[in-house]
């Protein structure tokens, strides 16, 4: 069976099923409907692997990622959204999430 993530990122495996989603709009929506506890749990683990993840993934053209690398990329992209909730919005996040539904993402360089 193939690994779900590249070697060295085992602590992130529990988060793949929920957070490794395709598409910027889907990741933004996931941030909006997730619970604060789930966001915090993902953030607390993922943030410590961000720099290493990007360094590993940068070694290869983005269109040549295998499934494990794509999962890692999607986790880091989800972390981008979740970190805005955890680091920036904090207790304003739930109110923002209600309003963010009125700002649909229609295009993204990562695929909307």
């Amino acid at each position, binding site marked *: 069976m193939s690994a779900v993530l590249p070697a060295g990122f085992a602590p992130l495996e529990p988060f793949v099923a929920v957070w490794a989603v395709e598409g910027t709009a889907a990741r933004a929506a996931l941030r909006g409907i997730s619970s604060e506890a789930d966001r915090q749990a993902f953030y607390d683990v993922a943030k410590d692997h961000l720099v290493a993840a*990007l360094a590993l993934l940068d070694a290869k053209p983005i269109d040549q990622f295998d499934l494990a690398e794509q999962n890692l990329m999607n986790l880091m992209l989800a972390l981008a959204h979740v970190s805005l909730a955890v680091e920036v919005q904090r207790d304003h996040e739930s109110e923002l999430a209600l309003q963010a539904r009125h700002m649909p*993402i229609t295009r993204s360089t990562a695929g909307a």
Partner: protein
Amino acid sequence: MDGRAGEWMLGTDPVPAAPYCDPAYFELERQAVFRRTWLQIGHVCEVPEPGNFIVRPVEVANASILITHAKDGRIRAFYNVCPHRGTELVTETDGRASVFSCRYHMWTFGLEGELRAAPDLENFFVAKEDCGLKPVAADVCAGLIFINLDPSPAQTLREFLGDIAGQLEALPVAKATTFSEYVYEIDANWKVTYDNFQENYHIRFIHPRSIAETAHGPENPFGYPEKFAFHGWHRTATLAMPSNSGPRARPQSVNAVAFGALAQMAAADGFADSPYSREYYALFPNFFMLGLPLQPFSHCVMPIDAGRSRGVIRLYWNGEDETATRRFAREYILGAARDIHTEDRCVIEAGQRGLNSGALTHIHFQKQEVLCRHLFHMVEQHVATYLAQRAEAAA
């Protein structure tokens, strides 16, 4: 003009509230402003090759505009209307084609708007060469596509933009090959919406976490721009340097990694030392462009009616996401910018509800809201000119 010294032009009087909510005034703006001004509608990266086309609505003019890239390399715009009996011609929003055929009677047009063929044309009483798509003035500056619905625009696009044209052409948008986008609709007049983004006075209250917390120190608690400038119909704000005495950007954080990557990207793309990196452009009537290479966004507010508008916000980028770090940084800044605009939307609608009540005959702009006052005057000048011309024509 120093944004913080207190010097200002354009007067100090309260401003009438009616232009911001009165349907009759909006009808005047339809004709006086939106049917005779250069309007930003797209970017050349949406039509990069011959055969590409896009179709964009201009609700305030009840129009659908077809924009094509023909073999001769020119970008053209047309009313998306078959000249036979007025049927809407192209139903897709974008694509690639060599011809456009009206589904009603199969009149077929080329990318330069010419009628190529029409069944039974010999039974008509009009020459083929007079049956092309109705053209709309179109031009490009800094990659941005502008149209003008005036059959004889009073100014070329470059005359209209003036000295701003050269500045825009030095921004990342001029080299953009792709963009990310989010959109919104809002129950607010286009000027009420637009004015929110022309003043920093609200930032510490509406964006306490997303902007004020890391940008504003005690020497500039409202985050006012360093200075304002007026350029004909248009205006600019030079953003203040980030505070050295306020809280620093969030250390050892995802935010720090993202902004570090954005700064490296800007440097690699040649925009680190742009002389316009702190400029915020407010182009008449309804378009914004930020010069900051870390967040190269444009924002267009399209009027729908006196109390409703549609917004399009884009982040322009040079090249696809070639690396994971680029993809991550672009995703992050899209999310961050969207959060900021989301924070604004709700309070803008609340402002429109208050105006719609008729409670106020006038509103007040302070010194640091002078860009809002400038827009009011520029719209008033257009409306006054239009009314004078209408009166003269009727005499």
